[in-house]
């Protein structure tokens, strides 16, 4: 590089640096001038603001949306709950205060209170620290009586979620839980704060976003001592939308009562919409216990129960459908042309395939059996014969058409899909070929096949209404409180690709089950002839029986007894309700589960006008 080049560059540089220097000085001067303005000219103002008017924005929690049943009866409400807090800066003597609190509120340990007090940094002493949520009436009364002698405590009111029907529909509504730190760090919970409640199960979880509402903001001025001086609302909170459920709480309570001493589930559907009219699972739990922080003993009692009361058996319990599966096999056989209505098989009590003997539940045999009798008397041998003629994958095809083997899509979280086995399923999951004999088990609803009570109820909807499956729904509409805007959940029908004449033949056979002598549920028909009920019993084996005669039901230990099923609908001519009941280890379907269904249907139709007028009951 030449010297001249360097020279001109240097000259140019020095000239420009002088300009840069001037700019820098001007910038510094601007900063100083601004400081002068803020600190000297307006210093007094700002000093006053610093002393007296410290502005903060506080959150106004939105009220959670309400939940109603189909007749607008309140199922989930918000009540004022009383919380006990401590204001550190007002405490005079923490030791005696803590002892007094322990006397009035026995849950709280004085040592813990003193320890927590010690951990609060000094600059946060103006802020209330929550000691207990949802004080009970006695605690509140004792505290109120002694409040003046207890400087430093504060009783605050916050909305508390309450469920008037408590354990009668706890599984449907679900419960709330406090948000945890892991969730708070996820983008999905961006607008949540620590101490917020979130729906954990049921409707509360499924409709969390809708029910939650939008929090508001309040601008608060605090003085130098940190006390609120003034506040005004920046944005009012918007309460969450309210939900109208499809259930009828009276029917729901009745279903819960019917199940009281049993383990199992009942589901009632409207066959023209898929509306869930009732859905009960037993044993149940009290969701009100979760609304405030649940106590350790309560949690352990619920969680430690071997029958898992938190599980909603209606959508999460999967059981072999037993004979309630037979109408689906019958539909498959008719539709695929394997049989006609008049095709008959002879039942002598067993059916031989190779070296294996498959037994009918009636060891004396049914004699000659056609389609109608096969369902009415639930002849197993008839279905073993069908199982030999219909390939497993065809049975699966029809079972899926009736909504088995996958979630129904009801608006509840964590529904289980059950299982409809196919040959490729077995190869993939058990790594074995499908054996012909297994199809025979499937044909009577045993083997790998499982379904939830909700799925079975939904599968009988097309049998009741003549061929349309509906996705079950729990929420009928969502109403925005501020605008009154209403979002209606539409019914979701799907027509079955099965000849309606075939379905009608099966439907008639299901009527005979209840209303003809020797029908497996004839006892129900005799008791409630006015219901015109149709249905099917089912008995799901828990343990595979060995050869030899089946032992007496009474002699088997409870947990090895069969599950009892009954799925029915009524009135036969124009069905208005479909009910599925499952009783775990209940024994025979007709006697254990059947009465639950007929009682519930009687209650439903009895409350309706039609049945009332006819029978003249009040």
């Amino acid at each position: 590089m030449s010297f001249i080049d360097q020279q001109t560059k240097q000259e140019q540089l020095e000239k420009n640096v002088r300009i840069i220097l001037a700019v820098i000085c001007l910038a510094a001067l601007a900063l100083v001038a601004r400081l002068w303005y803020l600190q000297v000219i307006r210093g007094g103002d700002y000093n006053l603001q610093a002393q007296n008017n410290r502005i903060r924005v506080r959150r106004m929690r939105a009220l959670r949306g309400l939940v109603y049943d189909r007749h607008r009866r309140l199922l989930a409400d918000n009540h004022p709950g009383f919380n006990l807090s401590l204001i550190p800066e007002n405490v005079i003597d923490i030791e005696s205060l803590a002892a007094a609190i322990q006397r009035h509120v026995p849950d709280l340990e004085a040592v813990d209170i003193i320890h927590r007090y010690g951990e609060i940094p000094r600059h946060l002493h103006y802020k209330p620290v929550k000691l207990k949520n949802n004080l009970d009436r006695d605690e509140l009364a004792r505290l109120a009586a002694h409040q003046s002698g207890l400087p430093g405590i504060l009783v605050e009111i916050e909305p508390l979620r309450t469920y008037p029907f408590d354990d009668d529909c706890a599984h449907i509504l679900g419960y709330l839980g406090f948000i945890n730190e892991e969730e708070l760090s996820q983008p999905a919970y961006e607008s949540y704060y620590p101490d917020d409640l979130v729906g954990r199960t049921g409707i509360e979880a499924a409709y969390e976003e809708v029910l939650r509402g939008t929090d508001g903001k309040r601008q608060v001025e605090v003085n130098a001592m940190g006390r609120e001086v003034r506040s005004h609302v920046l944005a009012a909170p918007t309460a969450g939308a309210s939900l109208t459920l499809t259930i009828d709480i009276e029917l729901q309570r009745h279903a819960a009562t019917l199940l009281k001493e049993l383990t199992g589930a009942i589901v009632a559907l409207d066959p023209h919409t898929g509306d869930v009219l009732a859905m009960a699972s037993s044993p149940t739990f009290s969701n009100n216990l979760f609304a405030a922080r649940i106590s350790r003993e309560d949690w352990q009692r619920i969680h430690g129960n071997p029958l898992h009361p938190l599980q909603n058996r209606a959508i999460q319990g999967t059981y072999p459908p037993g004979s309630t599966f037979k109408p689906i096999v019958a539909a498959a056989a008719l539709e695929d042309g394997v049989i006609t209505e008049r095709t008959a098989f002879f039942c002598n009590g067993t059916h031989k395939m190779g070296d294996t003997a498959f037994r009918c539940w009636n060891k004396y045999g049914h004699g000659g059996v056609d389609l109608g009798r096969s369902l009415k008397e639930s002849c197993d041998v008839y279905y073993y014969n069908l199982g030999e003629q219909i390939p497993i994958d065809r049975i699966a095809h029809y079972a899926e058409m009736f909504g088995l083997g996958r979630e129904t899509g009801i608006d509840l979280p964590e529904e289980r899909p059950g299982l409809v086995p196919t040959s490729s399923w077995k190869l993939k999951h058990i790594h074995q070929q499908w054996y012909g004999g297994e199809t025979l088990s499937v044909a009577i609803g045993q083997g790998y096949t499982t379904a939830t009570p909700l799925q079975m109820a939904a599968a009988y909807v097309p049998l009741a209404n003549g061929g349309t499956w509906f996705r079950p729904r729990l929420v009928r509409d969502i109403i925005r409180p501020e605008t009154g805007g209403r979002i209606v959940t539409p019914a979701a029908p799907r027509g079955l690709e099965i000849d309606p004449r075939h379905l009608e033949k099966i439907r008639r056979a299901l009527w005979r089950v209840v209303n003809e002598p020797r029908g497996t549920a004839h006892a129900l028909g005799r008791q409630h002839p006015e219901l015109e009920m149709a249905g099917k019993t089912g008995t799901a084996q828990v343990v595979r029986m060995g050869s030899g005669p089946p032992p007496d039901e009474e002699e088997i230990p409870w947990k090895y007894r069969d599950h009892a099923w009954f799925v029915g609908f009524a009135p036969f001519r124009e069905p208005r309700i479909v009910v599925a009941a499952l009783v775990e280890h209940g024994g025979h379907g007709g006697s254990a589960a059947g009465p639950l269904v007929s009682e519930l249907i009687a209650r439903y139709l009895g409350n309706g006008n039609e049945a009332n007028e006819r029978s003249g009951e009040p």
Partner: protein
Amino acid sequence: MSIRQPRISRIDGGLLLLCVILFTLGCLTIYSAAFDPDMASWLPHHCRRQLLWFVVGIGGMTIGFAIDYHLFEKIAYPVYALALILLVLVLLMGRTSMGATRWLTVAGLTFQPSELAKLAVIMALARYFSRRRIAPPYNLRELVIPFGLVAFPFLLIIRQPDLGTAMLVALISAAMIFAAGITRHSMTTICGLAGAAAAGGWHFLHDYQQQRILTFISPEMDPRGAGYHIAQSKIAVGSGGIWGKGFLKGTQTLLHFLPEQHTDFIFAVYAEQWGFLGGSLLIAVFLLFLLRGLTIGTEARDPFGSYLAIGITATFFWQFFINIGMVIGLMPVVGIPLPLFSYGGTSLLTSLTLIGILLNIHFRKKYF
């Protein structure tokens, strides 16, 4: 003939002293920001970490000083290329946090390639102008290559999106190009274009960025978010008055009204305690520091040294001006720390390394 001076006197003691003064004041302010009357430890966590980083920074400074800066001239373009590659990599596989992708993780260490890009652009421009055979001032056509050198990293950083750093790169480069020489006509054209681009670029800004600028224009719009920061920051600074409230007596600081009070808003903590007098003094110290930087630039042995020193000085100037301007409500809120003052390891390490390079240029100047 020149008389060889003793080597030790060729170290710029003035610059070192100013640097130590700034760091010490910064440390005291961080201490007061973390101060709590009931504090368990005499040395709060943040202070301890800052001192630890200072030791690491001294290492960086020594390296910046010890390597003959002419080596930087040789490796300028490879470093620039590396920086570009890293910026592309960060877009492809970087770690995303709060909507922006700025971090790369290599062997467990997380760093921001845009930090390296700043230095790389300074070195690349210094090298380019020092080897240029045409005499300055340059017109637009002659400046196509330097503009390109700036444009690539600028666009890649904006894409992350990190508007603050991208603007910083642009401003530093503008200062260097101006120092190297640009014709008056070209400058007018560029200012016009930049203004038009800023107006047009509004639509490409993210919502939160638009929000920040709107908030700056009218803080009342968002009393909770950035507006809250500015309002509280102004109250803290303003309530300091002429004399300040005294060391450890800042009420706004003690009650934690200020957000991020030991990092980006550290100047507010300082100004509340030391008032207008202390604030002006700090600005004066910074001014002296920048003056030293510019002087080192004009006295350097060769054009590369000059341009490098000016680029580094510009880096300090813009951070200093934007940060304080933001705290006292002259600038929108952008996440740029006050160099040598704010709490933060990366910032301190970078600053001390850059000062090492300034000392390096001064050390190797011509002594007659």
